[in-house]
């Protein structure tokens, strides 16, 4: 069972009633799994428009007295920080389980922030599992703990728990634990300053009782020698296997709660030791706190961890770097691991747009039209599949930092250059609704002349094709209602028309106006899923092809490759019939194998 599925299953076993989230790798499968089982269980579950809203939906449910869960990736928790901080003040009536899936190594993220810090910052206990089975066990423990303490609990997952599969014991789902009604209690639920002052005092008292309560959790302590290795979360796996490989007796203590630490347990374990090694994934969160405990207890033993340079502070733990760190800390010889680490020059294979991706067409058209219009824009990019526009041949993502940043940073660069810089902000449909909307309001309100491109592929595609509000709410109508004067909707698969419209929009921006173009065409993966019989593929006529390379060099579709003689060849197993290469071919050498219009019309219905 996938780690994320184990988490979701356990929550359903524990009587989950309300779940909300926003997609983000490596967290998405939690909500997906609950959605798949919502009908049989009667759980309310939603993909919310962003993490803050998702948090509020779950938080409100828990204030009413339901068992609730909210799930997101690590950076999503930043978006939800406002309600999160408040939820510690008010507490909850039933259980509120907040799940953050961190991404050490940044496999699909812009940073590797360690959200265990958030627990210290907000006074919310953090539970950290090390495997899918352990995650399932700890979800149930977290939910009952949250209910008992009337306080939110934060579970920190990482990629190597969320996206690991192992056997997991499962039970029947329970009946969802909904509240019967909302019982008003404004002195606890309404954070006007007079109430909040009172509640801060209660929060600190509750935090003390939480510190006491975590002592009794089933932390795993094995007393076997004068060296103590303290771990939390996924690090425990690496340490267990590394110690077996190194064959030395060492005591281990794996804590379930990196925040707050079980102080008494740690002090007792350390008092049997001459040396402490802390191994953890992310920042030295446990290490710093262990040092604090030892200072308070007046215990002086060396503590070796990330802060001391024994383990890497960049990227994720591996069995190899944990073994190296442990060997160094314990002063033992590391038996050489054999590796054929010869450097081989293989061309890189960066992530690319899928065959038939509408974004590839949009970036191609944008490149052609900006060149024709002689503008040298800053392409202010955003988080989504279109981030891949950063790669050649497009090179059309110059700044790209966080969800919704395209419009905001674009406005900042515009202002910072005294209005001299031409700005094109590029944002996807899901990201537009997530955090682009307030920025667009600002662009209208503060009159920012720029071009906003909404690449509307109808799905939250990068995280696996979750639905997006665009399926219900028309982006062009929203932009018009906000007050954007020049709003266009075009199909990137209609190359000539798209280029004409983009040229027109560029002129408007040159004239000092704000223009917005919705480039609307569904994700190629979603469009072709289960419809292979409808797809009309394209082929290259080798006699007509003049080997100019425009198709394979400028669209960079993975389905088109140059042959030895530089003529184009389309892989029939990859082509999904978007027709863009046929439209850009100056020699009319690319032809459909059937009625392409019929297929493209069907595709356009999504």
């Amino acid at each position: 069972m996938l780690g994320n599925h184990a988490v979701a299953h356990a929550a359903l076993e524990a009587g989950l009633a309300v779940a909300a989230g926003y997609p983000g790798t490596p967290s998405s499968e939690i909500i997906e799994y609950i959605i798949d089982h919502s009908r049989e269980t009667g759980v309310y579950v939603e993909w919310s428009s962003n993490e803050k809203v998702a948090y509020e939906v779950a938080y409100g449910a828990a204030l009413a007295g339901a068992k609730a869960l909210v799930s997101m990736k690590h950076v999503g928790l930043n978006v939800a920080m406002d309600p999160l901080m408040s939820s510690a003040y008010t507490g909850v009536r039933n259980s509120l389980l907040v799940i953050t899936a961190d991404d050490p190594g940044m496999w699909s993220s812009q940073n590797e922030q360690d959200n265990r810090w958030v627990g210290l910052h907000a006074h919310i206990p953090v539970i950290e599992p090390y495997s899918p089975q352990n995650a399932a066990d700890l979800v149930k423990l977290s939910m009952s703990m949250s209910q008992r303490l009337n306080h939110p609990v934060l579970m920190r997952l990482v990629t190597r728990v969320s996206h690991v599969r192992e056997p997991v014991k499962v039970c029947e789902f329970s009946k969802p634990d909904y509240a019967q009604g909302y019982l008003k209690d404004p002195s606890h639920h309404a954070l006007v300053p007079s109430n909040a002052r009172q509640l801060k005092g209660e929060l600190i008292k509750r935090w003390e009782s939480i510190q006491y309560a975590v002592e009794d959790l089933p932390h795993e302590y094995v007393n076997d020698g004068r060296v103590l290795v303290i771990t939390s979360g996924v690090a425990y796996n690496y340490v267990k296997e590394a110690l077996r490989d190194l064959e030395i007796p060492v005591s281990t203590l794996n804590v379930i709660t990196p925040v707050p630490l079980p102080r008494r347990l740690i002090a007792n374990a350390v008092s049997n030791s001459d040396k402490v090694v802390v191994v953890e994934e992310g920042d030295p969160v446990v290490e710093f706190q262990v040092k604090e405990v030892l200072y308070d207890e007046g215990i002086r033993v060396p503590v070796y961890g990330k802060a001391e340079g024994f383990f890497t502070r960049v990227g994720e733990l591996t069995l190899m770097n944990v073994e190296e760190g442990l060997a160094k800390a314990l002063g033992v010889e590391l038996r050489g691991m054999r590796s054929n680490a010869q450097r081989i020059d293989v061309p890189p294979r960066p992530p690319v747009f899928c065959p038939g991706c509408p974004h590839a067409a949009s970036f191609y058209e944008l490149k052609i039209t900006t060149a024709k219009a002689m503008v040298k824009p800053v392409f202010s990019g955003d988080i989504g599949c279109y981030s891949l526009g950063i790669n050649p041949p497009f090179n059309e993502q110059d700044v790209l930092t966080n969800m919704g940043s395209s419009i905001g940073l674009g406005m900042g660069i515009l202002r910072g250059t005294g209005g001299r810089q031409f700005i094109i902000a590029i944002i996807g449909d899901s990201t537009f609704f997530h955090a682009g909307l307030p920025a667009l309001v600002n662009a209208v309100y503060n009159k920012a002349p720029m071009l906003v491109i909404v690449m509307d592929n109808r799905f939250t595609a990068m995280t696996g094709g979750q639905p997006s509000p665009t399926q219900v709410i028309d982006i062009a109508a929203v932009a018009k209602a906000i007050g954007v004067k020049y709003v266009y909707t075009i199909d990137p698969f209609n190359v000539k028309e798209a280029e004409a419209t983009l040229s027109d929009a560029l002129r408007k921006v040159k004239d000092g106006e704000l223009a917005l173009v919705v480039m609307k065409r569904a994700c190629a993966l979603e469009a072709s899923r289960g419809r292979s019989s409808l797809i009309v593929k394209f082929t290259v006529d080798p006699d007509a092809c003049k080997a100019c390379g425009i198709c394979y060099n400028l669209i960079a579709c993975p389905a088109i490759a140059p042959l030895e003689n530089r003529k184009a060849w389309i892989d029939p197993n990859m082509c999904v019939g978007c027709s863009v290469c046929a439209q850009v071919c100056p020699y009319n050498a690319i032809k459909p194998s059937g009625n392409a219009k019929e297929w493209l019309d069907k595709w356009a219905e999504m």
Partner: protein
Amino acid sequence: MKMNIYLTGVGGQGLITFASVLGQAALHSGLKALVAETHGLSQRGGSVDVHLRIGNVHAPLIPRGNADIIVAFELLEAFRALNYANDNTVIVVNKRLIRPPTTRAKIPSINELVSELRKMNNTVYVIDAYNEALKLGNAIFENMVMLGALYSVSDVSKFISTKAIEESIKEVIKREREENIKAFHVGMGLINTQRQ
């Protein structure tokens, strides 16, 4: 018992399904299995790898130089995976070259790549899984052909029966189950002919 199987290929080739089938079959055979996958930025076309560890294991990732078997679904990716190889590693490689779409570099031919790979590693089995899959009617069966090939050259067969694999294919794969089982058997047959 501990077996480290490192899978590498290009997004969309079905590595995760391969690992799920084999991992599930290991469970049915009473063995622990850990599968670690990394979801990169694109769903299609980028390099992907999956770590499959069977037996007495805790850590989800295979340390560099410690793969017992490398299953490469694409030739260029096989070279990238050599960091995980040691002198005893068995490599099962698909005879397929997928050109990275954005590179302008000259890429060696399939035969050049295969002979280069054989120079670097003692035990290399080259499988034409892609064309065998097409013969079965769909490139999608490529992964089960590779699984069959892996099964017949490695110690996997000592611990996991073909029956367990077939059962697991039926559980994990939703569509065209019989064809997938057939692809698995085709893959096993390919190695036998290579040995003769």
